[in-house]
């Protein structure tokens, strides 16, 4: 059990691959993706997923070492500025087969 940063990123499904590529480049050890059923933010409601991915949000959960965080957030920030969505970072303890 050791300390890591817990990172969760909400992003439109059309932009998901941009974030995942970024995370891979930053060398995160893994990630898990969830699909939201609805969302609301500055650009209105996101709940029309029945027809196309345009209004579907996903949430990416990942972890990183505290010292890698500045690099990661620096890389992430322009993506979120461009495509919307948000990133929440908190402290956590990790148990894992490493």
């Amino acid at each position, binding site marked *: 059990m050791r300390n890591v940063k817990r990172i969760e990123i909400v992003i439109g499904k*059309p932009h998901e691959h941009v974030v995942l590529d970024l995370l891979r480049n930053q060398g995160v050890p893994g990630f898990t993706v969830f699909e939201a*059923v609805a969302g609301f933010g500055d650009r209105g409601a996101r709940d*029309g997923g*029945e*027809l*196309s991915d*345009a209004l579907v949000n996903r949430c990416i959960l990942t972890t990183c070492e505290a010292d890698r965080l500045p690099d990661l957030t620096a890389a992430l920030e322009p993506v979120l500025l461009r*495509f919307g969505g948000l990133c929440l970072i908190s402290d956590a303890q990790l148990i894992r087969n490493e």
Partner: protein
Amino acid sequence: MDSLLSPAILFFFLGAFATLVRSDLEMPRPAARLLSLYLLMSIGLYGGYKLSLGGIDGQALAVLGAAMLASFLMPFGAFALLRTRLGTEDAAAIAATFGSISAVTFITAVAYLNQSGIAYSGYMVAAMALMESPAIVSGVLLARLATNRAAARSRETKNAAASLPGIEWKQLVSEATLNGAVILLIGSMVIGYATGQQGWDSVSPLVYDPFKGVLCLFLLDMGLIAARRLGDLKRAGVFLIGFGIVVAVLQGLIGVGMAWLLGLGAGDALLLAILFGSASYIAVPAALRLALPQANPSIYVPLALGVTFPFNIILGIPMYAWLIAQLGIGAG
């Protein structure tokens, strides 16, 4: 106007009613997606099968070319109008959705023709497939031309990060043409064409016989969703709602005119009108979220879905059919 009484249209009303009275009726997202794959596959296979019976002649090629060109050009006019009220990216995005087409509207029109016993050609399905993408390219092009200078000015500010970078044309064209709906439609058409009568006989118990029933289920969901978008529409305002009807009709009339010029039959003329006059809420929004991320999907989706779509399936289809009959198009 007996289209108003077809079960499919009535299920659309039922769905809208259920949303408006705040019922908890809903279709799960994956189920709606499956129905939509089914409809695209079915209409593609049917078009391909019909093509395999007839074949493509010069007139067909002329229609396909004219349809693609129109889809590329129509956004320029719409954009000019929209820029009087909206920002660049929103205007470009709306123009793109209206240059493209709505597959469900097309399918509803096909069901209308079948019910009325009016013939139409298999290549009209190809016309639909080919009209999905060009408008996306012109929409991005329009936004690019208009923001070129503004982007330069704001380079130092924080918003620069969000401004349009140089368009990656290769990526854009591939995203526009490789959209899932386009691929499924064209692929199914090719398969329907390649496997001909034997292929059709093997798949028609799924893709043809229950088709109208599935359309009912799907339009029920469209009603549920479209009515949910009415809240967004209020924020959009009267100008945009008017746009969603008036510009749609104008484009539909261009379609009728082009059908007349090309000497199409009555069924093909109706389908061309409805392609020109419908707006995309499936393929285009998905592509625009990537290509024009600053455009607000809560504007362009509700407009296509909550205004133009219901207008077309309820009033547009019988109206164009009536007009085409009055003008004697295809009646020779």
